[in-house]
């Protein structure tokens, strides 16, 4: 029987759109206190999945193989199909961003593993296509390409966050009081936290990082 988290969901604050708020409505500590209401299995799955999809900067030293191994671990232990849907959505974004950066630098798809998810082979086979033949699935590709061409790293980050935010909203609405809604909240909180951490000082450092990402030639999924 599917678990429902009436108390937990009702104890979480409404999250405002990340582009229109200046305050984080809940601290991480308070969030973790509330998450203790989750069943142990669900809490494990949430933590494992969050480590993979979290918007927080992943260590640059982490290789594509390591990321792929983490992805496979999440897939192997997954008990919630909708969660896998979120993971795939995030990994597809990362894979597409790697492909767009490589192509912008005039490179072709590298040999060996360079992305994850079902679209990797399609992207390789349609490399010359402006949208990799995936415009119906990922209608934001032209906009992302435009931000890359302009070197507008912040615009690109906002677009990616916005697409994830929209997807999480849909999943949350489709599973009222379910584990999926809890996960969607945690992931949206992560995006909001990331967004609000761009204060003056941090924003400058982060902006430099983003510029580096847009212009660099490294290929890691988390780059």
């Amino acid at each position: 029987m599917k678990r429902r988290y009436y108390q937990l969901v009702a104890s979480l604050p409404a999250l405002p759109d990340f582009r229109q708020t200046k305050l984080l409505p809940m601290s991480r500590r308070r969030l973790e206190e509330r998450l203790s209401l989750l069943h142990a299995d669900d809490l494990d799955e949430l933590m494992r999945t969050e480590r993979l999809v979290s918007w927080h900067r992943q260590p640059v030293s982490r290789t594509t193989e390591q990321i792929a191994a983490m992805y496979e671990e999440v897939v192997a232990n997954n008990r919630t199909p909708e969660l896998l849907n979120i993971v795939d959505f995030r990994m597809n974004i990362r894979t597409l961003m790697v492909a767009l950066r490589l192509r912008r630098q005039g490179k072709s798809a590298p040999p060996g593993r360079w992305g994850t998810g079902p679209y990797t082979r399609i992207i390789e086979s349609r490399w010359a296509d402006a949208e990799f033949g995936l415009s119906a699935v990922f209608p934001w590709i032209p906009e992302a390409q435009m931000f890359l061409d302009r070197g507008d790293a912040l615009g690109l980050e906002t677009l990616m966050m916005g697409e994830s935010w929209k997807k999480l909203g849909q999943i949350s609405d489709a599973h009222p009081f379910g584990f999926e809604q809890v996960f969607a909240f945690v992931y949206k909180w992560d995006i909001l936290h990331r967004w609000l951490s761009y204060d003056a000082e941090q924003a400058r450092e982060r902006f430099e990082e983003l510029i580096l990402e847009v212009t660099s030639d490294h290929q890691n999924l988390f780059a």
Partner: protein
Amino acid sequence: MEPLVLTMGWLGIFAPLTLGAIGSMIGVGRGGQAAAGAMLEVEGGYGRFVGVAAMPSSQTIYGIVVMLTLNRTVTLGSSPGLFVLGTLTGVALLMSAMAQGSACAAAINTSKSKPEVFGISIAPAAVIEGFAVFVFVFALVLAGAIPK
């Protein structure tokens, strides 16, 4: 065969109360959990959350009234009618209480962040109550046609 038919008659008499009460337990449980969660987030107005959470209690009351109306000497003539009317009424009350509990939980979750929509947010739960009332009223009407 005769004992089975008579057993079904007794089942029909008690089903509205039993199933209605089970539904109320589940429904109030859902609403109550949401109310408890919302209380962690708001500074006041706890009473209205508890009030909304208690809405699915009414199905038990409807069940009691239908049970008392159906209660009569169980015979081979009255058993089929008692079974059909009683069990179907019970199932309807069970389902409505569960659905109402979910609607109440959603109303509590919404109104904790946006108190101004409190009234309108409980409208779906009130509509579900209306369907339970339909079943209740027409069960009473049809009960008169079952042989005494």
